[in-house]
């Protein structure tokens, strides 16, 4: 019906229109019907995204070149330029050749990036155009984002029912979906940064949605500030990209069928890997991008904001802090995969960060007692998985990361919504020690939560199994050098251990909450029953999706072949034949065994004989792991001591300086005339003779002065 450009514009435009409508009318006109425009727009945006996906698939998908034996794919991208947002003519100055020269990197011709001489780029314009792109990567992201948003929005109708900020909530949700769809469909780094901040803003607004609650306000602030650190890195990366490449566009600028100026990640770049900046600059760009991605995707040093972000409403946790926004970092690294592929050091950093995050977050999740916080750490851990896959730098790894991103969006969304349903019925109690045996009271929630847990743990044939296995396979794939092989092999076992831990903590929560003797906290009151259809239908839908998505995408292999046509992934060298068809069944066997071991352990400890707790907890305590885990590896304390306290002290010093010195000066200027007035006031005594004498004296003084001078 529509062609690709129209759809690409329509997808962000619909949520934007709904946001404006809700913002304008929500407070006084729509009130408790504020969800209507937003849900309508999200539904239409989802349909448009599906249409876009189908269209892109038809144009770019597999089967276009059946007889080809070499798997060198042809990159596919479509560009729509709406208008030029900013333009600085002749802004580019090519860097002097020796600016980035380092002693270790003799091949300086490649260091600088643009193939040929950089003089070609001399005096190029800095043009930031509002350009939308459609390629397999963004199409997949768009469908995921709009579908999960739609489902969560429908769920929110039930969850947020009666909240005084109902219209505000849906306005923010619409704004978020607009920002997120723009984030994945813009085609240059400057606008990517703009919408990167846009989703950060929505995240802040929605975490602090119940801003009267001090914890929520503090959590929003924390998220915003921690993200600033990452955004700082991202901004520096954008500057460096401009210096190294002379353009901020992803795409190539075409005149007719001739490429007039090449983008960073466009089709032309995809066919010419040597063009990518390597060496020190390339590594610096990648590490800074990684810092940005770490902030947004809650990776290891900057993950502290995500668990606190659970103060927001649960649908927000599901949508923004599990399914979509936090995957922006994964999207960014996937989009910039060619840049990362050119610098092995940066790739290793990505993989190490991912692997470490996955393990640490999983260990922390074991001892948490807040249901939502367990899921938050599990999100961090799963995002770590995705980074680990991206860190392999192969097409296989990137595709596996995207695969996991899609499946994770469904089952983590499902788990959060299930947790929200539990909270809703239990009067806001999320402490798993105070809940128990809810399967009779909340049957739909229980069964869907079970499916979500199976998917998260990665039990065959749920979605998580396939995508997790794809990641494990990608990490286990042979590397060119022995050192790299050993490195990735270590990470492979880290990932495997994480898989076991994931299964354990997921089912720990499930067994405690849904099985065993019924324990209902007094806060639940009389409404400890299943939620309304608005909330259960999305749960059922997501549960079905969690079963189906992984299997479907794995067996047809369509996602893999489809994504392989994205310009960013083409240059990674395609996917080897052997890895795709049947997968590695020994690997699947081992990972399934590990997962089942984790579940069995959880069953033993939390459902079976309570005696078994007696050896597990002391074991953990003896190794110090329990303290470490329940204190979240002391990250918050470390930040408090190293960053917050010194900054607070600095701020207090500055404040007292301001109060005593600056304000003192200003006050002095204010009080000086008063003092002067007080000095002269006695002269105004009301005695006429005195005035006359004063006049005479003044006259005499003037006349005397006249005579003397």
């Amino acid at each position, binding site marked *: 019906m529509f062609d690709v450009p129209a759809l690409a514009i329509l997808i962000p435009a619909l949520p934007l229109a709904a946001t404006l409508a809700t913002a304008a009318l929500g407070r006084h006109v729509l009130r408790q019907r504020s969800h209507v425009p937003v849900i309508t727009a999200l539904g239409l945006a989802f349909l448009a995204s599906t249409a876009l996906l189908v269209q892109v698939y038809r144009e770019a998908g597999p089967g276009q070149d059946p007889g080809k034996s070499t798997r060198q794919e042809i990159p596919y991208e479509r560009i729509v330029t709406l208008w030029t947002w900013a333009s600085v003519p002749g802004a580019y100055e090519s860097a002097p050749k020796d600016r980035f020269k380092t002693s270790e990197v003799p091949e300086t011709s490649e260091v600088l990036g643009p193939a040929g001489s950089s003089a070609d780029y001399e005096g190029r314009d800095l043009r930031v155009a509002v350009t939308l792109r459609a390629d397999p990567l963004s199409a997949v992201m768009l469908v995921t984002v709009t579908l999960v948003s739609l489902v969560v929005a429908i769920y929110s109708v039930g969850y947020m029912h009666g909240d005084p900020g109902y219209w505000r909530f849906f306005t923010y949700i619409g704004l978020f979906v607009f920002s997120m769809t723009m984030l994945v469909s813009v085609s240059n780094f400057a606008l990517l940064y703009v919408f990167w901040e846009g989703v950060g803003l929505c995240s802040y607004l929605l975490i602090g949605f119940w801003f009267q609650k001090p914890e929520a306000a503090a959590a929003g602030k924390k998220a915003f500030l921690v993200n600033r650190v990452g955004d700082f890195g991202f901004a520096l990366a954008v500057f460096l990209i401009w210096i190294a490449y002379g353009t901020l566009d992803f795409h190539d600028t075409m005149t007719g069928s001739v490429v007039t100026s090449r983008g960073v990640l466009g089709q032309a770049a995809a066919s010419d890997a040597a063009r990518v900046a390597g060496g020190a600059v390339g590594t610096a760009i990648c590490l800074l991008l990684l810092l940005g991605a770490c902030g947004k995707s809650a990776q290891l040093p900057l993950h502290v904001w995500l668990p606190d972000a659970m103060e927001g409403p649960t649908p927000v946790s599901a949508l923004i802090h599990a399914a979509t926004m936090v995957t922006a970092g994964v999207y960014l690294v996937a989009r910039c995969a060619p840049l990362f592929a050119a610098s092995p050091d940066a790739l290793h950093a990505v993989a190490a960060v991912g692997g470490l995050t996955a393990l640490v977050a999983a260990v922390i999740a074991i001892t948490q007692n807040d249901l939502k916080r367990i899921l938050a750490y599990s999100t961090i851990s799963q995002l770590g998985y995705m980074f680990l896959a991206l860190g392999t730098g192969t097409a296989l790894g990137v595709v596996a990361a995207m695969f996991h991103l899609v499946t994770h969006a469904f089952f983590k969304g499902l788990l959060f919504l299930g947790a929200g349903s539990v909270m809703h019925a239990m009067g806001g109690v999320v402490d798993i020690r105070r809940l128990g045996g809810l399967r009779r009271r909340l049957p739909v929630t229980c069964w869907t939560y079970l499916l979500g847990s199976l998917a998260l743990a990665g039990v065959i044939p749920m979605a998580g199994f396939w995508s997790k296995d794809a990641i494990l396979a990608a990490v286990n794939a042979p590397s060119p050098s022995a050192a790299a092989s050993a490195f990735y092999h270590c990470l492979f076992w880290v990932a495997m251990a994480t898989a076991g831990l994931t299964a354990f903590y997921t089912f720990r929560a499930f067994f405690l909450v849904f099985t065993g003797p019924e324990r209902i906290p007094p806060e639940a009151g009389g409404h400890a029953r299943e939620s309304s259809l608005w909330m259960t239908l999305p749960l059922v839908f997501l549960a079905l999706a969690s079963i189906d998505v992984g299997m479907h995408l794995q067996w047809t292999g369509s996602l893999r072949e489809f994504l392989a046509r994205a310009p960013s992934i083409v240059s990674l060298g395609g996917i080897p034949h052997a890895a795709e068809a049947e997968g590695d069944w020994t690997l699947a066997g081992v990972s399934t065994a590990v997962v089942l071991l984790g579940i069995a352990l959880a069953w033993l400890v939390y459902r079976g004989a309570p005696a078994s707790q007696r050896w597990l907890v002391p074991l953990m305590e003896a190794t110090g792991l329990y303290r470490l885990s329940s204190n979240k590896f002391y990250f918050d304390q470390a930040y408090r001591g190293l960053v917050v306290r010194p900054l607070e002290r600095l701020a207090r010093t500055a404040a007292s300086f301001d109060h005593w010195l600056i304000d003192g000066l200003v006050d002095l200027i204010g009080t000086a005339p008063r003092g002067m007035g007080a000095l002269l006031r006695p002269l105004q005594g009301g005695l006429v003779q005195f005035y006359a004498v004063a006049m*005479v004296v003044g006259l005499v003084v003037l006349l005397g002065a006249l005579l003397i001078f």
Partner: protein
Amino acid sequence: MAVDESALLNGYLVVGAMLFGLGLVGFLSRRNMILMFLAAEMMLQGVSLSLTAWGRYHNDFGGQMLVLFIIAVAACEAAIALAMILMLFQQGGSLDIAVWDELREANVPAYVDHGIPEELPAQPPAWPKLTPAGTAPEIPREQTDYRPHV
């Protein structure tokens, strides 16, 4: 016969200055509003006199014209000032200017008239009473009119 113009001017200016000075002293030293008004009038007349004298000296009628203006304004001023003094007297029951000090600053204490200390009642001079002794000195006849040693 030619008049010594500058001597004439000097005389007039001295008289004018004296009038002005007397008026000033009167204005500053008196507290009776009518007398202060009269003193002010006297200062005006002093100025008027010197203006006339300067006009004569320069053979310029500007000075006299100014004096006519002063007289006219002084007449108006007299009417208004006397009316005001009358009103003030009716309200305050006193012609003392120090009674009217309401325009002073709020936190400045009002002027308190301690007055001049009352004079002691006049007493007859007490002459020294000396007992008469000896004989009255004899004054030579020629010295009754003129005594050189006194």
